[in-house]
């Protein structure tokens, strides 16, 4: 056994070492972008939307940025923080990428940030929205060009009270940080305007049967605010309608409950739901119309906000690289340029970063409507240039704890 086994072991080692990623490229090779997204597992379809967005932009510029060729290396995070960390190491240490981008889930964002700081390679977060990444726990090397979870909720809460006139609202939201932050932002501004959140229900992530929760909803409410993601977002609206609630309590919610990723799979039960987000595919601007048309032609589906933010991420990198003459090897300069990028005409509208590194951008209040047999998020109101702190003073806002299941407390429950 001995000799044979040795040969096997030695062979295995040679094999493993041999297939290791290639050595570093010469200095002025292509600009390398490392892109992290879930390509397998439950969120694989979202990951695809993200990659599609970036690919579309790079195709448009002929894979040339600041006179240099662009190479994108996509790595699968499997939606897990530890895998994302491993792939981050691979992208930085083996592939020697100049800039990183991507990520979907908040915990991946929190896991990556300290490592990104250690590596000193700038990373764009086009999707990961956890508030504290640009509030109480900012990272020097992370540039968020997406949004914070509570950003659309802040103006929405006040608007719901003042415009829709709802006084009492029941909240039903996925029980994790993203849900808490979206609900927290809504509750804060809604109650400051005079409204009351009278009940908070927290079904765990992955809930498929909402009957026990729907039965608890207080009937003396004026509306229900829902925050659903993934498979739950597909199931919830139908169950809400089947429980006879849709006719009695209008549905409002967080933007992802009804985003363009979910809408094609929903039926008429979704119609009339009002949600805020940083993007709507129905946005009636020439830039967006062109974007939607070409995206559909290329990938056969309507772009989601995941596609839009990653498309804009390509543009973002381009603008920053141009500003420093393509010298992306100078990481400090590159980072500074990435922080200075302003895009006046992205598909989702004008964007620039605030002092904390989060975009100041439009928030769109959208209502699900049916046009030509398809569901669209018609924009019924636009809040221009909303910062993550909305109308609050950043210093004071940051004194409150990050939104959680128990903050703000439910005073009217």
């Amino acid at each position, binding site marked *: *056994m*001995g*000799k*044979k*086994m*040795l040969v*096997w*072991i*030695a062979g295995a*080692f040679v094999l*493993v*070492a041999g*297939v*290791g*990623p290639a050595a570093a490229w010469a200095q002025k090779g292509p600009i390398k972008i490392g892109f992290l997204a879930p*390509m*397998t597992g439950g969120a694989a379809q979202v990951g695809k939307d993200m990659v599609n967005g970036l690919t579309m932009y790079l195709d448009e510029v002929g894979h040339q940025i600041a006179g240099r060729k662009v190479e994108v290396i996509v*790595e*699968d995070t*499997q939606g*897990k*923080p*530890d*895998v994302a*960390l*491993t*792939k981050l*190491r*691979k992208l930085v*240490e*083996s592939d020697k990428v100049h800039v990183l981008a991507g990520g979907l889930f*908040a*915990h991946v964002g*929190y*896991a990556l*940030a*300290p*490592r990104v700081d*250690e590596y000193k390679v700038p990373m764009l977060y086009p999707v990961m929205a*956890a508030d504290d990444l640009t509030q109480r726990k900012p990272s020097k090397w992370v540039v968020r060009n997406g949004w914070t979870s509570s950003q659309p909720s802040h103006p929405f809460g006040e608007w719901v009270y003042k415009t829709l006139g709802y006084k009492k609202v029941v909240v039903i939201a996925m*029980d*994790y*940080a993203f849900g808490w932050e979206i609900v927290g932002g809504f509750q804060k501004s809604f109650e400051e305007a005079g409204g009351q959140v009278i009940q908070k229900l927290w079904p*765990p*992530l992955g809930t498929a049967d909402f009957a026990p929760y729907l039965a608890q909803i207080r009937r003396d409410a004026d509306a229900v605010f829902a925050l659903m993601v993934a498979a739950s977002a597909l199931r919830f609206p139908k169950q809400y309608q089947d429980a006879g609630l849709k006719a009695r309590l209008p549905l409002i919610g967080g933007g992802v409950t009804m985003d363009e990723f979910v809408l094609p799979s929903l039926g008429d039960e979704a119609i009339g739901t009002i949600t805020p987000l940083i993007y709507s595919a129905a946005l009636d601007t020439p830039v967006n119309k062109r974007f939607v048309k070409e995206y559909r032609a290329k990938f056969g589906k309507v772009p989601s906000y995941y596609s839009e933010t990653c498309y804009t991420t390509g543009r973002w990198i381009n603008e920053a690289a141009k500003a420093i003459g393509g010298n992306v090897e100078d990481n400090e300069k590159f980072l500074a340029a990435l922080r200075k990028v302003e895009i006046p005409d992205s598909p989702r509208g004008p964007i620039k970063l605030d002092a904390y590194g989060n975009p100041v951008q439009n928030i769109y209040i959208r209502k699900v409507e049916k046009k030509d047999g398809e569901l669209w998020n018609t924009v019924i109101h636009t809040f221009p240039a909303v910062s993550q702190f909305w109308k609050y003073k950043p210093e004071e806002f940051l004194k409150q704890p990050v939104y*959680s*299941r128990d903050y703000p407390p439910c005073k009217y429950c």
Partner: protein
Amino acid sequence: MLPRHRVIGLGIMLLLLLVAPPFLSSFLLTLLTQALIYGILAMSLDLILGYTGLASLGHAAYLGLGAYSVGVLTTRHGANFWVTLAVGLLLAAVVAAVFGLVALRATGVYFLMITLALGMVIWGLAHRWVSMTQGDIGISGVPRPDLGLPWSLAKGIPFYYFSLAGFLLALWVLWVVVRSPFGQSLVGIRESESRMRTLGYHVWLHKYIGFIIAGTVGGFSGVLWGYYNGFVSPADVELATSVEILLMVALGGRATLLGPALGAGVIVLLKNLVSVYTHRWLLILGAVYIGTIVYAPEGIVGAVRQFAKGVKPEPLRSKA
């Protein structure tokens, strides 16, 4: 003692692990580090799965307990390595002692289901006890340990050797246990619990002690894992992680200790390396599992042993 050819084989394997790092890309090095840490976890599960015959679907809990001990103690209290190690091991041992009281009332598929449920309890705590664990966003910014060594463990190669030392320590501990009279009694329990009872063994006690040892060593792997990733989240204690550990043991070969460590290496490499080349890596992983079950039901080590003996591995067939 061991036959000479095996000693030589193991020696060469160890030598390769010792001299390989400078020749590997840093990515491969991190994968190898991961494989070592998961190897500890898989070996600890092997003590109850392979040696005692108890299939647990909650073993990721101990990884989580060790990792969360590191996460909480370093980021909040600035605890040093030895404190986190002591707390991690103790916590894992205590939880295993409590879980053992519940789980060891059952055997077979019921044991599997109870351990699954207990694993979910830890997952639920990691997820819901936000003030302690920061919920699903996890604890980030865990610094690498400072042991006062001339090499900084923040670097890849020193941390690899640190993990290798941990691996060898765990291997040694488990090796001694499985070869001890107690270890032999676990094998007896796997083979025939009822016979052990009438021979005079307090079977439950033996299983209980084995369960606690496995949990404690699992906690040890968690401590290393927390430092390695610098990050802890409920994803570490998911059911999927427990299933993966189970597969590592099955793939490598039950009741062989080094087999599960090898299985851990194969799965870590497949998961992270193959996925670099194709997003169809799950298919490949699935094919490897099925291939193992059908053609090498005793795992990689079992197949190698049979091959070495000149026996053709017998494919799994339904008995007529």
